[in-house]
């Protein structure tokens, strides 16, 4: 992001924030948080130690207690948070100017010390940070003055401001963290965020209380109780009976039924989770691009979206999701055409198809098994005999990393950076189960990553998508909508990046 873009983004939020800040300054009594909202979620965070979170489910929740240097708005744009602005001093140095007057929940001041302490802790091997890989580009953090820090990276990293936002840049208080010790920080967080953690009985309930001195202005709701409700039917039942006011996720099949309930409001939003089938391009016959294209023609993705997701999803032409920077609608998806598929297979020398295997798994953040089953069904019809293997997700992960997957496996990657290059780099790394690698593609991406201007980056992604589509190293699928159900007494707008941001949550009337 250039200074220009940063300033523009800043202006945007300043307008939005002006209201909240102004309101709390003029009439703090009127803005005081009130009431209680109960939430039922399928998963709870594993810890409130931001450096030891495991899985998206943790990261998307603990942002309610902490702040990053940057944040995202309701549209997914990067906006200032604990940093008021940031700029690139040179290819490997980012400078962040910090917000003044921000306090942690316990009254500690937020300043450059906090940033240095937090980033040093995250990159210190002794922390054994689970998110270490996402911050591994950081070489060191330098304090310029109490409210200015320079973060030096090992190589140019255009994504650093995003990394140091809500994803992996949540800020800790040095004093508190050192005082309570490593084990206790998991359950006794001290952030600058809109809510304080009051009690947490794992698998039972988690209670948040409004931080009345929040720098954006106090949140609207005083108490938020989060209950993990694992079983879909039980979670929906809890919403229907009024035990909770807000739930997520909801199986798509239940949407229409719940929409008919006048006491409930159902909201859906495209999630940046890109479903695809990875093809092992090293192994014949998949080294033949015609075979890969045939597979893409063989699967009726629209029918899958209609029958399994009841239309709450978006067909994708490649592995770039619709909300991502530079999504190019002119790159059209492979049309469903079984005859074309058969013809392509015949051209490739497989008029009678061939036999192969496809891996899928259960127990991950989304249901991969049902779409996989449908895909296998379509491939059968095109003459490709597919044996489907099902693993528990935790058993599949090691297989993928050890390159022991079947030639085909279904997967989904959450584009949490909302930036295609991050996703594509990972998907075409030529290892960890993803064997496609293309020097030309890498070159294009490197050029994009060196471009600070968002708009100019966006334009270049069109060619990338064309190339990936033609090469077809995946069966391109879809992104599914996230589904939120709420009672009509609350007001909540889900975010497009999966983050469960409760600051904007309010009670009606």
């Amino acid at each position, binding site marked *: 992001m250039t200074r220009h873009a940063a300033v523009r983004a800043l202006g945007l939020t300043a307008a939005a924030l002006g209201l909240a800040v102004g309101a709390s300054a003029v009439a703090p009594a009127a803005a005081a948080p009130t009431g209680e909202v109960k939430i039922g979620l399928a998963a709870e965070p594993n810890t409130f130690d931001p450096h030891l979170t495991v899985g998206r489910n943790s990261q998307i929740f603990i942002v309610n207690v902490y702040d990053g240097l940057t944040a995202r708005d309701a549209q997914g744009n990067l906006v200032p948070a604990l940093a008021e602005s940031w700029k690139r001093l040179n290819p490997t140095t980012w400078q962040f100017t910090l917000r003044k007057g921000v306090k942690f929940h316990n009254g500690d001041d937020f300043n450059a010390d906090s940033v240095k302490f937090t980033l040093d802790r995250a990159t210190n091997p002794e922390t054994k940070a689970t998110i270490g890989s996402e911050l591994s580009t950081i070489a060191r953090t330098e304090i310029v003055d109490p409210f200015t820090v320079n973060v030096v990276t090992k190589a140019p990293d255009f994504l650093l401001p995003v990394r140091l936002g809500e994803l992996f840049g949540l800020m800790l208080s040095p004093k508190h963290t050192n005082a309570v010790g490593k084990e206790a920080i998991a359950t006794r967080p001290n952030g600058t965020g809109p809510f304080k953690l009051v009690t947490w009985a794992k698998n039972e309930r988690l209670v948040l209380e409004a931080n009345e001195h929040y720098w954006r202005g106090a949140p609207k709701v005083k108490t938020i109780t989060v209950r993990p409700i694992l079983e879909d039917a039980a979670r929906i039942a809890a919403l229907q009976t009024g035990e909770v006011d807000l739930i997520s996720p909801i199986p798509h099949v*239940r949407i229409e039924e719940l929409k008919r309930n006048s006491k409930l409001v159902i909201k859906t939003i495209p999630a940046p989770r890109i479903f695809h089938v990875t093809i092992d391009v090293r192994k014949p016959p998949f080294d033949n691009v015609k075979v890969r294209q045939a597979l893409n023609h063989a699967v009726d993705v629209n029918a899958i979206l209609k029958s399994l997701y009841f239309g709450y999803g978006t067909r994708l032409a490649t592995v770039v999701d619709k909300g991502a920077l530079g999504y190019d609608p002119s790159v059209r998806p492979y049309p469903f055409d079984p005859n074309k598929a058969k013809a392509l297979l015949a051209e490739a020398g497989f008029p009678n198809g061939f036999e192969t295997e496809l891996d899928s798994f259960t127990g991950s953040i989304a249901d991969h*098994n049902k779409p996989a089953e449908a895909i296998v069904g379509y491939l059968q019809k095109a003459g490709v005999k597919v044996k489907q293997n099902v693993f528990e997700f935790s058993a599949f992960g090691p297989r993928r990393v050890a390159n022991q997957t079947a030639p085909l496996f279904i997967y989904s990657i959450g584009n949490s950076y909302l930036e295609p290059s991050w996703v594509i780099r990972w998907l075409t790394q030529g290892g960890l189960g993803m064997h496609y690698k293309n020097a030309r593609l890498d070159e294009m991406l490197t050029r994009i990553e060196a471009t600070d201007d968002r708009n100019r980056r966006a334009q270049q992604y069109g060619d990338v998508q064309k190339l990936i589509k033609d090469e077809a190293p995946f069966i391109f699928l879809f992104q599914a909508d996230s589904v939120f159900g709420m009672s009509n007494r609350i007001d909540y707008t889900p975010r497009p990046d999966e983050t469960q941001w409760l600051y904007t949550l309010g009670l009606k009337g």
Partner: protein
Amino acid sequence: MSGRVERESAPVSPALRAPSVGLAWLARLARRSPLATVGAVIVGLVIVAALAAPLLATTDPIDQDLTIVLKPPFWLEDGSLRHPLGTDHLGRDVYSRLVYGARISLAISVLAALLGAAVGVAAGLVAGYIGGRVDAIIMRVVDLNLAFPLILLALAVVALLGASVKNLVIVMSITTWMIYARVVRGLSLTLREQEFVQAIRALGAHDARIIARHVLPNVLAPVMVIWTLEIARVILMESALSFLGLGVPPPTPTWGRMLAEGRDYLTVAGWISIFPGLAIMVTVLGINFLGDGLRDLLDPRLRRQT
């Protein structure tokens, strides 16, 4: 694909042994225990369905058609006789899946129970007949296995080996062999001390021969009863593992899988899970009726009192 389904069903035949003794036997059973008769009839029907699945099924059980998903059974509005029990989330015929599901579910549970019985009976015979340190070791292994939460054991093993028919059979047999071992050990312990066995031994017969010729036949009746009841338990366990996402991989239809798959659709398309649920219930009920009846007939202590 149906070729694979057929191969897997071959081991169903051992189940036939129990009720195929003949009409006279059935008549005797009917007089003594009406419930057992009902059980025998149910089990018989399920076995017939399993064996004749290719004849009974109206369509290929794994043939999907996404244009006709979630169609209701024929007696409901929008239903048709083409899919008498409706279609599932991938437009597959619930009735045909149910019929083929009988094969897989029965085959898996009969096999698992059989494997468990074989291991358990062998362990029990050896422990009871030989006694001493061997007995102590075997019984400690039994205790250990019993103390290990079974579903956790099953979960860990399936997670380790991956879900497949073979692995499920192994896992479920691990959870069932102990009960045979305990019962058979107790019985062979008593048998060993009995005069006729002592006499044979005095005549110089080999231990292995004594076990095979004289001890084993005497423990078969209670083993038979336990085996029947364990099949019922294993059917339920298969459905529990399917519920946890660790059952037989798709698209192979099993009742447990169908039940687990259909649970999201309960309020929208209940037939997907209600029919396999009923199938499981009725079959397990039938097996339990039969097992109880067998016990009444075979257990000498109970027979004495009638």
